[in-house]
Each structure stands twice: as structure tokens, then as C-alpha cells.
């Protein structure tokens, strides 16, 4: 069968395994970036929470035990990325080469890719959010300990953002089925 070459053909002829593998890499790589380091000019996760906590604890050592909760929230963001990466890699299956570019194969590859992107970027912004709130929580708790619980409630809402991404990512990957060996 002859096809005219076009950019659409170039896109469709990329192996679905490529998309699936990139999706898995993004789900864990970008999640950990949000949990720990920084994105653009925004400091994320444990980077900002940890340094604010250590700095504030110089004058108010009592804040350490409670404010480690913020670090735990940031770590949970990375763990969501790990969970989804493991789920996605169990969805990879071999298909015979005749079926590699069948519609169902492409669908499965794209579903795994999309799931990885969903989880990765949701956890990225969730990590930035929880990190900055956790940093403010440590600094305000050092000044006034009655503020801690109020800011913790805001932090719980912030961590729910990552949870939404994980739920949608898991649902998206659940229906990634490769064609059966014909």
C-alpha cells in the first residue's frame, strides 16, 4: 500500500513503545522534580520546605517535629509518581510486528504516554504548591504556633491536586490494552 509522505505519517509511524516509554519516564522524572527541586523560577518541594524549616528552627527549635509533616507531603508527591510508573510499566506488552501500527496498539501507546504526562505535570505543580506552603507554614509557626493547623489545612488541599492527577492517570492507563497476538 503506498502512502504519500507527510508530517502526519511521520507522527503515526513513531513506534507506540516510544510514546509509552517516554510516558513512564515523564511520570517519575517530572514528579520527582516537583517533589524536590525547582521548575523555572519556582522553588519546589523539599528544596524550599527543608531550607525554610532549618532556618526557622534556629530561633524556634520546637517547630521541627510538627513541620516535618510538610516534608512528608512533598515526599508523597514523589511516591505518587513511582506508583504510576510501576503501574504503567506493567501495562507494557509485546505485540507481533504486524500489529505494531494497528489502531489498538497506537491507542495503548498514547494512553500510557498521556497517563505519564498527566501524573508528571500534576505532581510537578502539586510539589511546587506544597513546598511553598510548607515553607510559609514553618516560618509562621516559628512566630505564632496557633497558625500551624490553619496552614496545614491549606497544605492538605494543595496535596489533593497531585491526587487528582494520579487518579486520572490510573484510570487512563487502566484501559491501555494491546492487541492480542493474532
Amino acid at each position, binding site marked *: 500500500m503506498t502512502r504519500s509522505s507527510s508530517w502526519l505519517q511521520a507522527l503515526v509511524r513513531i513506534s507506540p513503545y516510544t510514546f509509552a516509554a517516554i510516558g513512564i519516564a515523564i511520570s517519575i522524572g517530572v514528579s520527582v522534580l516537583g517533589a524536590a527541586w525547582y521548575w523555572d523560577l519556582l522553588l519546589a518541594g523539599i528544596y524550599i520546605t527543608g531550607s525554610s524549616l532549618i532556618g526557622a528552627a534556629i530561633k524556634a527549635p520546637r517547630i521541627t*517535629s510538627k513541620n516535618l*509533616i510538610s516534608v*512528608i507531603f512533598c515526599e*508523597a508527591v514523589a*511516591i505518587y509518581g513511582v506508583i504510576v510508573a510501576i503501574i504503567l510499566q*506493567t501495562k507494557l506488552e509485546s505485540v507481533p510486528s504486524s500489529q505494531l501500527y494497528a489502531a489498538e496498539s497506537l491507542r495503548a501507546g498514547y494512553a500510557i504516554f498521556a497517563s505519564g504526562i498527566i501524573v508528571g505535570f500534576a505532581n510537578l505543580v502539586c510539589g511546587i504548591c506544597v513546598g511553598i506552603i510548607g515553607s510559609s507554614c514553618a516560618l509562621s509557626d516559628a512566630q505564632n504556633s496557633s497558625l500551624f493547623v490553619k496552614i496545614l489545612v491549606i497544605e492538605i488541599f494543595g496535596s489533593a491536586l497531585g491526587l487528582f492527577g*494520579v487518579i486520572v492517570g490510573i484510570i487512563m492507563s487502566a484501559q491501555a490494552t494491546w492487541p492480542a497476538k493474532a
Partner: protein
Amino acid sequence: MTGVIEKFFITSMVMWMAPLAILYSFYYGYIPGASQLSAENKTLISGFIAVISVNLVIGFYICMAMKESPSSSNPQPDPKFLAEAKASINQSENAASSSTGVDQTSGKDSDQNKGKME
């Protein structure tokens, strides 16, 4: 302080191991009835239970941390730092009074001087 670090470390380890254990036990058949699920349902159920387990561990750690009684309301400065700071203030006062021969009433030293005069 070591108790705080220990609790944090144990919570982190459990937070990593619990969801991984749940995922692998679903896929390697340690859960009775898991092998009869379709692949789609297995993914959904194992994924949701793993995420719920992470949140349960976080909730448990929050309860443990909030139950800890506060150690003291006022921060206590490090005694060695405090002794060195007092020594340097005394040293600068002695140097200033020996050079000018009058009482110094600068802002930093006002408390020290009030104590001496009383």
C-alpha cells in the same frame, strides 16, 4: 530530637514500602482473588489501594506529630554561643571605658550598665 528523626525515617520507609508491596502483591497473586480480576480492574483497584495507603500513612504521621507535647514555649539559646557573646560585650565595654574613662550608654550596653548601676 532523635525521636523526631526516628519517627520521620520510619514513616518515610513505610510510605515507600506499603504502596510498592500492595502493587506487587496484586500482580504476583499474593492477594486471594486478585488473579481473577480483569487487567483493567486489577490496575484500577491496585492503584487506588496503593494511593489510599500512602494517604493513610500521612494521616497517621499527622496524628502522631500533633499529639507530641510542646517541649518549651521560649526558645533557649545555645549556652556556648551565649557565653561567647557576653564575653565579647564585656571585652568591648572594658576597652571603651579604659580608652575614654566615662560610662558608655550605647543602646547595646544599656542593660549591662543598668545592672551595674543598680
